[in-house]
């Protein structure tokens, strides 16, 4: 089933890189991304303040280049802030003149709303109902990324009730649709712990694990993925087949989360699906989609 003329085309976004990659790898990666059919690119470090392989200046350079190549660029901020230096880092991003910011902590929401600047809320800004969403819309939210643990049904209810109660709320909805789900943040670094290193002397050991470290149960079931202070899902979340359902609900953007290999192919696959439909899409039984179907996140409801 192809998309008809009057149906709005689903937009595709590429989330921020969640892992610690080398500087040159990052530049090469975004060179490929620039040539891909993705519409929106989120740039910046959202996990660990110690990872500074790129300065804000470098990220802005990349942002201008991607913008020239026709991408909409958003700068993403850190999720868990502990030190004042981290707050300054976020403030510098929020005060940039040229790009929209994805707020991943209420501090960034505060800075942006105080400046009267429209913003995007990331998946760890807890919006679980229409009243929360609309409170933030009044403060300048122009797009929200749904918290990953919410289901299709809850999203539908939020959007329906939001439209009913606040018909004039203009905002876009983005859903994390492909990749390893960010599930938790801690003060501790679990990658350093896995290597028996203290956090202050971590030697940037997470750089050795470009897609994180898999955690298995004692009977070899993959449970989680360690990524520094972040814990991710053990299975890759994949909602590609849900593209038509999302479009009919009013989702504007599907987010793909970068992996070290194959990301551009995934973008291509999503792009083909938005043009030609999902009838021929194959989904790996190794992936998960439980959250979307109001089940445990690790489940795959296509293979039950």
């Amino acid at each position: 089933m192809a998309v008809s003329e009057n149906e709005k085309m689903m937009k595709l976004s590429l989330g921020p890189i969640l892992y610690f990659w080398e500087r040159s790898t990052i530049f090469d990666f975004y060179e490929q991304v620039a040539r891909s059919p993705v519409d929106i690119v989120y740039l910046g470090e959202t996990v660990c303040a110690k990872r500074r392989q790129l300065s804000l200046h470098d990220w802005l350079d990349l942002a201008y280049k991607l913008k020239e190549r026709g991408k909409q660029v958003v700068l993403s901020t850190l999720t868990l802030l502990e030190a004042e230096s981290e707050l300054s880092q976020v403030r510098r991003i929020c005060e940039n003149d040229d790009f929209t910011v994805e707020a991943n902590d209420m501090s960034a929401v505060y800075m942006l709303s105080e400046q009267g600047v429209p913003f995007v809320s990331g998946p760890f800004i807890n919006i679980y109902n229409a009243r929360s969403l609309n409170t933030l819309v009044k403060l300048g939210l122009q797009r929200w990324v749904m918290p990953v643990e919410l289901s299709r049904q809850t999203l539908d209810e939020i959007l329906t009730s939001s439209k009913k109660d606040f018909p004039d709320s203009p905002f876009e909805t983005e859903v994390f649709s492909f990749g390893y789900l960010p599930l938790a943040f801690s003060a501790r670094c679990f990658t350093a712990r896995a290597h028996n290193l203290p956090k202050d002397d971590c030697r940037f050991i997470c750089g050795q694990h470009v897609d994180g470290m898999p955690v298995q149960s004692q009977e070899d079931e993959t449970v989680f993925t360690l990524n520094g202070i972040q814990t991710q899902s053990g299975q890759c979340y994949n909602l590609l087949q849900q593209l038509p359902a999302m479009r009919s609900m009013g989702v504007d953007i599907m987010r793909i989360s970068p992996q070290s290999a194959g990301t551009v192919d995934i973008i291509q696959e999503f792009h083909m699906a938005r043009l030609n439909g999902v009838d021929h899409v194959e989904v790996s039984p190794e992936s998960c989609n439980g959250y979307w179907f109001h089940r445990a996140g690790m489940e795959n409801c296509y293979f039950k």
Partner: protein
Amino acid sequence: MELVCPAGNFPSLKAAVINGADAVYLGFKDETNARNFSGLNFNDTKLEKSLTYARDRNIKIYVAINTYPQPAAWHKWQAAIDRAADIGVNAVIVADIGVMDYAVNKYPDLNLHLSVQGSATNVDALNFYYKNFNIKRAVIPRVLALPQINRLAEKSPVDLEVFAFGSLCIMAEGRCHLSSYITGESPNMCGVCSPASAVAWKNTGDVLETRLNNVLIDRYEPDENAGYPTLCKGRFKVGDNVYHTLEEPTSLNTLSILPELHKIGVKALKIEGRQRSPAYVGQVVKVWREAIDAYTKSPELFSERTSWQLALNKVSEGSQTTLGAYSRPWQ
């Protein structure tokens, strides 16, 4: 410093009050609070009885309405705020900005405390909640080190409450979906973590296995003490190593830094454990009351008494305690 104590039922509330609580926090009997466990919490009659009991003794009551409502059940959170305001509790402990928006607009005189589930770890996050919802106090997630709390207290627009004792969340509260990933239920959505309904214990030969929604969380040899299968405290495999991948099962105990917490300007100390027994609550509150009184009486002479440590160690998870993020031995 105010001693804020947990109550999962009326006997615990009495134990807290008798042993020296300044304030008691509790929740309604539904998913509007982050300890939504069967057999726990307060219906309207019990709450009114508790309120009368506490008021007669000059003790404050805080009601935790600190989970995140989804649209289909929004009315439950709204009703919880209405009931709390109606019976005149001293404060509600809230996390969801929709709930805060409702509360501050409908009941401008109702005191709002930001729950630890609100996940505010820095001054601008606190500014956000203060400016938009006029919160009076914030409970700080258990991720900050002592010097960080110190700097936060210097600049905070609101009073700070910190966790002093009890079970230890190692993830930033309000930003952890591990439980829903494995079981479908999480603290944010349902007020539970690693819910009992998903737990299975099974003996295979001499080995005891604990599971959550069929995922193996740990295996215990006969000489090991088995613990409740909380996800973040399980033994998993990374590469070839089987170990407590995220955290050892320990409890938080900040008795040794009581003077520092006071000097920093922390206004309230929270004891975790609404799910614990009245005996536990009584024991822990008694020790903390004695410690705070001893410190207040002569701050220079304060030192941790062995009897306090022994009493607290006896009730601690895994019989081990830690200063957690406050001291950061793993840093």
